């Protein structure tokens, strides 16, 4: 600790330059400081190192400089007040000197104005122009004591005015610089010595006095000085302790800041990793969702393929082959065969009927192929959507809501047909929807697929309705209703949770991803059911512009 104190006190510090006067101070300060810092319990007992000492010394010097500057400014004001007070005292006590009924301004008034001004002017100028400098406070000390002398004189040597000296010394102690007190004391002593020798009545009030009487007066000043030195020493101790604490605290703060920066960097890194993990997980979830949706579409694809296959099977390829064989057998006499042979004569009608018969499944196959193409396109869109999600961008298009609804119904149409689901539409005229087509399609296909599943085990009419309207808030509402199995109250919110499903082969992704997609589009997806067996209503609400 000693090293700390020695180093934090600047070279011109009173404590380091008054070994005779303040012997043992350094040791006392050292011990006290060490105890305070070490035992405070509020600050960590940081081992003193050179950086800490250097910083503490810097803070000490700053605090000392602030104190000196502040005290200089205080004295500048005080000295101006004293000057004015001296003039006021002269005007009050001895304004005029008289001869009978005639008078003129008393010499004391001029002395108060001119001499007081001379004493006050220079130190005030120094305090304002060069605050904090060593010379400034010493000049102030000299001027302050001279002011005491002037005030004593102006008040007719009143003993009470001598107290101004002692007050001035106390005030000068504000500098916490014992040398300033020494300067003031030297001036007081010199004044008493010189005036005691050459003008004793002006300072001691008697004509003749001992040539050592000035020592008595200076002794009383030294008595006050001694007390003030002790006070200054204690204040400097406190300043050095505060500086050391501040330096320690700053060190702690720097360490904390460093750790904060370090932890923040770690957190940022972890956050980035989490973000990437989350993104990958999100992509996996989307992939699952995509597979789910692709699975839905593949059902339709399968149905279409099956239908096309059965239609192809219905083709009477064998009859056509028989006709071909017959024509080949009679290739040499084909005209006779067609005109004379009873089978040959029936052949044109037969071919005509065969063509008619083949045309019907061909048309059905064509329709299925078209549906198949649409389903394949939708699968492409779903895959593209995943790629779009993976890239983090979505394409906003102006869409016809009716077309969106029809497309999503069409994707599921084969399934609806196979399960005898009667789909009704109530589509009110609404403005075009500006949004991401594939996300809306994903939601609607899923909702329709779910509704179809809800109707699978439903006895009686299997009814599904799709309603489109604009609500009072201006949002688009697409409502999918069914009269299927319904949703128990306890599941009404859980159905949107990831992985929750009531279907035997479900994965619990459809509604979850649908709700997320709706949210991403700025809308909501809500479910309502009056209970098991009472059907369900899903409402997709979207802003018309996204």
């Amino acid at each position, binding site marked *: 600790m000693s090293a700390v104190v020695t180093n934090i006190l600047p070279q011109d510090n009173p404590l380091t330059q008054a070994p005779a006067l303040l012997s043992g101070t350094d040791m006392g300060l050292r011990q006290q400081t060490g105890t305070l810092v070490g035992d405070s319990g509020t600050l960590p007992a940081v081992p003193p190192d050179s950086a800490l000492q250097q910083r503490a010394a810097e803070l000490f010097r700053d605090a000392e400089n602030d104190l000196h500057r502040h005290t200089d400014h205080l004295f500048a004001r005080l000295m101006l007040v004293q000057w004015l007070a001296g003039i006021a005292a002269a005007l009050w006590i001895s304004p005029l000197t008289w*001869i009978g009924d005639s008078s003129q301004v008393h010499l004391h008034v001029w002395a108060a104005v001119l001499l007081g001004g001379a004493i006050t002017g220079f130190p005030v100028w120094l305090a304002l122009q060069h605050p904090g400098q060593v010379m400034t406070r010493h000049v102030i000390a000299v001027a302050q004591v001279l002011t005491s002398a002037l005030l004593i004189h102006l008040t007719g040597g009143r003993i009470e005015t001598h107290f101004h000296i002692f007050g001035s010394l106390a005030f000068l102690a504000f500098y916490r610089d014992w040398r300033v007190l020494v300067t003031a004391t030297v001036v007081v002593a010199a004044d008493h010595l010189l005036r005691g020798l050459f003008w004793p*009545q002006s300072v001691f009030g008697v004509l003749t006095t001992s040539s050592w009487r000035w020592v008595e007066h200076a002794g009383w000043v030294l008595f006050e000085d001694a007390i003030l030195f002790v006070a200054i020493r204690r204040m400097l101790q406190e300043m050095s302790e505060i500086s050391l604490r501040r330096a320690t605290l700053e060190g702690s703060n720097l360490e904390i800041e460093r750790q904060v920066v370090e932890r923040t960097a770690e957190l940022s890194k972890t956050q980035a990793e989490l973000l990437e993990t989350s993104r990958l997980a999100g992509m996996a979830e989307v992939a699952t969702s995509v597979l789910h949706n692709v699975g839905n579409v593949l059902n339709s694809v399968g149905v279409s393929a099956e239908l096309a296959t059965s239609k192809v099977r219905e083709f009477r390829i064998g009859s056509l082959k028989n006709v071909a064989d017959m024509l080949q057998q009679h290739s040499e006499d084909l005209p006779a065969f067609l005109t004379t042979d009873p089978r040959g004569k029936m052949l044109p009608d037969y071919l005509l009927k065969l063509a008619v018969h083949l045309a019907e499944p061909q048309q059905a196959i064509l329709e299925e192929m078209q549906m198949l193409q649409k389903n394949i396109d939708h699968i492409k869109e779903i895959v593209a959507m995943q790629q779009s999600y993976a890239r983090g961008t979505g394409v906003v298009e102006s869409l016809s809501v009716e077309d969106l609804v029809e497309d999503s119904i069409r994707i599921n149409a084969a399934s609806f047909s196979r399960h005898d689901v009667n789909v009704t539409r109530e589509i009110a005229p609404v403005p075009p929807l500006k949004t991401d087509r594939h996300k809306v399609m994903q939601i609607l296909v899923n909702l329709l697929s779910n509704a179809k599943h809800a109707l699978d085990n439903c006895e009686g009419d299997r009814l599904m309705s799709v309603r489109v309207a604009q609500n009072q808030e201006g949002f688009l509402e697409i409502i999918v209703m069914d009269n299927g199995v319904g949703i128990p109250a306890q599941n009404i919110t859980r159905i949107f949770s990831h992985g929750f499903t009531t279907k035997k082969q479900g994965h619990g992704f459809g509604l979850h991803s649908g709700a997320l997609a709706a949210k991403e589009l700025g809308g909501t997806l809500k479910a309502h059911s009056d209970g098991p067996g009472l059907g369900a209503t899903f409402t997709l609400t979207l802003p018309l512009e996204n």
Partner: protein
Amino acid sequence: MAQYSQTAGPAGSPLPQWPETSLAHRAPGQSSLVMFLHPRCPCSRATLGELELLMAHCQGLFSAQVWFIQPEGMTEDWVKSDLWRTAAAIPGVQVNVDYKGEEASLFQAVTSGQTLLYDVSGGLMFQGGITLARGHSGDNPGRDFIESLLNKKIAHAASAPVFGCALGWKKTQKECTACQQ
């Protein structure tokens, strides 16, 4: 300023015997102190402070009266300044107005603060001031002389410089300027 403080006023030529024509009352069987003051003289404040000490130190040994000059044309309010009130507040001191300085003229006192001590028989024992310098309180030879005379420590007449403004009853500038130089 030091020179100003230390420059004494003219002492005049006080009468060696109490003037019987004076309005001032001489107490029988006691020494009598007569002090002349200019009511506006700032230096005389210290004189009254010394008189107060004198009255305290030598209580019952003498009678004291202070005469305040009232120059012609000045009102009594001008005379009854704070110095008047200070003097009147000192126990045992009789305060009077000296219109046109007639009493000062009679006693030949010319400087404010001039103090005259007459013994029981009316003989002048002390003349001068009881301050050390202009307006300065403190121990001074004038007060010491008076205390010694009253306590019969000395028997010879004594004097001391007087510091104060000119009382102004003398008309020539030369007679009055010493205290203002």
